[in-house]
């Protein structure tokens, strides 16, 4: 019975009750729309997070920490560790900084050892930056001590209010706790003096706010002494007078920033900090210093994964944006699943409606089933007719849901954009990923497919029941 018009016979049942058709279609539409919107939002939010993480630091930068178990100085008692953590807590320090404190204790011997293992000679490594943590030491060629502070990689200094310089504050607190003599020596803190973190030109340098403020004060004092009409003073070579050193966006530059708008502004001299690797190369060779924190720039994610494995096998904890991105991607799977489950609840309600309507349809069309069987229709024919009857609602509802979703996501995105674009917290983030509701081309296909699959399940039992009715019983049915 190849040419039996199943569709026509199925629509006969659907159109017999227009109210059922309408209510079922609307139920399915709402269910699928809700389902789709939640999936769309899950996609958008996780994409947003992924964009956020990948913006903040290059995916090809790997942070390698010292293995805290390998070289912990036993003179640091548990109480002292707790004390460090409490400092971190007071300063609202996040994970990185707690790690910083821990690593400071370990003296970074294993990182140095890891370096000697030949990783530094890997041709895929573009640049190595050794971060000294609490390992204060004078850089060669400079009179000052520097502290490398793992500030939040995401933010440039201009974005950072003073209270957000948690790494710096932690470092100062830590130093005070550890050895008060440092204060007597009038240590000048450089902050993340090696802070060439990624390749974006406007975020390559981090300079602690306090140092900038001090420099500004110094510039003002200097200007007051010399008079406002004088040009900004050239910083001296003396680091104490210079107040601030900062590496420029282009590491080779030594430049001045002076804005001449009629008012004298502080002028900073940007003395390039030597590449960390160059600075400490001799130290590494001589084992005179240890480095608890190693930053490695590589040319590809694959290289990073390989190096990460290498260090982890050595017992060195590592950290990279790739970890965050991987976590976000994993989160996306769960988010989509949860979104789909919540949307699925509405869908189940819609499918119950279809199930109920189809059962009623089977009851109503029982005699019709008998006629079809008398005319020669097989059980399969009857099954197909009733399955189609269930699916017709879903196809109509699914198509409308897919179309409505397109408009709904657009409207929602525009609305959110309008609400959030003026917010200083969100405006920059929205530049990364302006749409919180995503509508990839596969989503409407997914919506209709899920709807069809679900409708198939909901229709199967009524259809099975329809085809199992004996033809003579169906013909006798009142």
């Amino acid at each position, binding site marked *: *019975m*190849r*040419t*039996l*018009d199943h569709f*026509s*016979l199925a629509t*006969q049942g659907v*159109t*017999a009750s227009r109210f059922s058709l309408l209510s079922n279609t609307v139920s399915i539409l709402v269910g699928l729309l809700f389902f789709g919107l939640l999936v769309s939002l899950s996609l958008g939010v996780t994409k947003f997070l992924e964009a956020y993480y990948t913006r903040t630091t290059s995916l090809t930068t790997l942070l390698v920490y010292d293995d805290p178990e390998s070289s912990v100085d036993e003179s640091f008692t548990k109480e002292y560790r707790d004390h460090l953590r409490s400092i971190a807590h007071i300063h609202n320090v996040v994970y990185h900084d707690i790690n910083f404190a821990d690593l400071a204790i370990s003296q970074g011997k294993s990182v140095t050892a890891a370096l000697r293992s030949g990783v530094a000679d890997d041709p895929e490594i573009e640049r190595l930056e050794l971060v000294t943590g609490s390992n204060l030491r004078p850089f060669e060629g400079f009179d000052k001590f520097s502290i490398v502070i793992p500030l939040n990689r995401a933010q440039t200094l201009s974005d950072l209010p003073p209270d957000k310089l948690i790494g710096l504050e932690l470092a100062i607190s830590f130093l005070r706790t550890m050895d008060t003599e440092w204060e007597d020596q009038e240590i000048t803190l450089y902050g993340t003096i090696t802070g060439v973190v990624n390749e974006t030109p406007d975020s390559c340098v981090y300079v602690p706010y306090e140092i900038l403020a001090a420099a500004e004060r110094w510039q003002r004092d200097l200007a007051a002494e010399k008079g406002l009409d004088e040009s900004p003073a050239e910083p001296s070579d003396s680091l104490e007078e210079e107040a601030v050193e900062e590496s420029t966006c282009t590491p080779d530059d030594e430049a001045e920033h002076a804005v001449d708008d009629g008012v004298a502004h502080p002028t900073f001299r940007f003395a390039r900090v030597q590449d960390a690797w160059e600075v400490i190369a001799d130290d590494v060779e001589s084992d005179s210093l240890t480095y608890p924190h190693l930053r490695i720039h590589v040319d590809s994610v694959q290289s990073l994964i390989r190096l990460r494995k290498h260090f982890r096998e050595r017992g060195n904890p590592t950290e990279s944006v790739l970890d965050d991105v991987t976590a976000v991607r994993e989160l996306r799977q769960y988010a989509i699943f949860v979104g789909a489950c919540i949307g699925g609840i509405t869908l189940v309600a819609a499918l119950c409606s279809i199930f109920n309507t189809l059962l009623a349809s*089977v*009851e109503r069309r*029982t*005699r*019709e089933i*008998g*006629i079809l*069987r*008398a*005319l*020669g*229709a*097989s059980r399969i024919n009857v099954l197909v007719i009733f399955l189609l009857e269930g699916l017709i609602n879903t196809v109509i509802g699914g198509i409308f849901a897919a179309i409505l979703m397109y408009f709904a996501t657009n409207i929602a995105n525009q609305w959110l954009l309008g609400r959030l674009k003026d917010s200083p917290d969100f405006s920059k983030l929205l530049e990364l990923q302006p749409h919180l509701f995503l509508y990839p081309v596969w989503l409407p296909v997914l919506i209709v497919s899920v709807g069809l699959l679900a409708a198939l399940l909901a229709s199967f039992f009524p259809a099975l*029941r*329809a085809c*199992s*009715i*004996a*033809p*003579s*019983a*169906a*013909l*006798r*049915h009142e």
Partner: protein
Amino acid sequence: MSARTQLYSLSGVGHTYNDSGGTPIGFQRANSKRVVALKDVSFEIDRGEFVSIVGRSGEGKSTLLHLLGGLETPSSGQLCFEGKPLSRYGLVRFRRERVGFVFQMFHLFPNKTALDNVALGLTMTGKGLGQARKTATEWLTRLGLKDRARFRPTDLSGGERQRVAIARAVVKSPDVILADEPTGNLDKASRTVVLDHLAQLNRELGITVVMVTHNLEDAETYGDRIIQIDGRTIARQWSAQGTPVPSP
């Protein structure tokens, strides 16, 4: 008159079914009662014969018709078609190709036109819709319904609907038409028209007709043979001329 060949042969056929007792159709109650619908029915029907089956309501006339049409299988006895047990034909295929049903309540699909209702009988056999519609139109014309082809059943009179049902039954050139009270819902004029058409099909095309009716007058007027069911079995048989026919 040419020699007649045996079409149906029933020997000791009985049928029982489960009384659902109000249980919704499709569900079987575990403790449902067995009801005897027919017992020990034996007779034969020749090809080209017009057989009328009469009897009171509830005596099993429709059940007998359903057995003949392959809608049910006998619980006991043997039912043969062209000398072979009916089950050997495959009941779906048998219904699709060998028999045409005409029901008292017409049982047309309300959302289809008369033409498509008739064509449905043919598309079931695998014919394309175009060919089926062409043949259906020929049959509607033959039954005097050419100008009603595009009408839906609700726009037709009772007699017209039943003629559409006859066209649907006959369009696939079956061996036998099984008519269950085909005039039960019709006035006298329509009744005559419908029965005349059945008789004409029987006479001109040699299609065997088995008609269940309450109306003894119609049964004797149109039937070559009349079978009376009583007590859920055959009470007697007689020819149109009134001659008793012995049971096999």
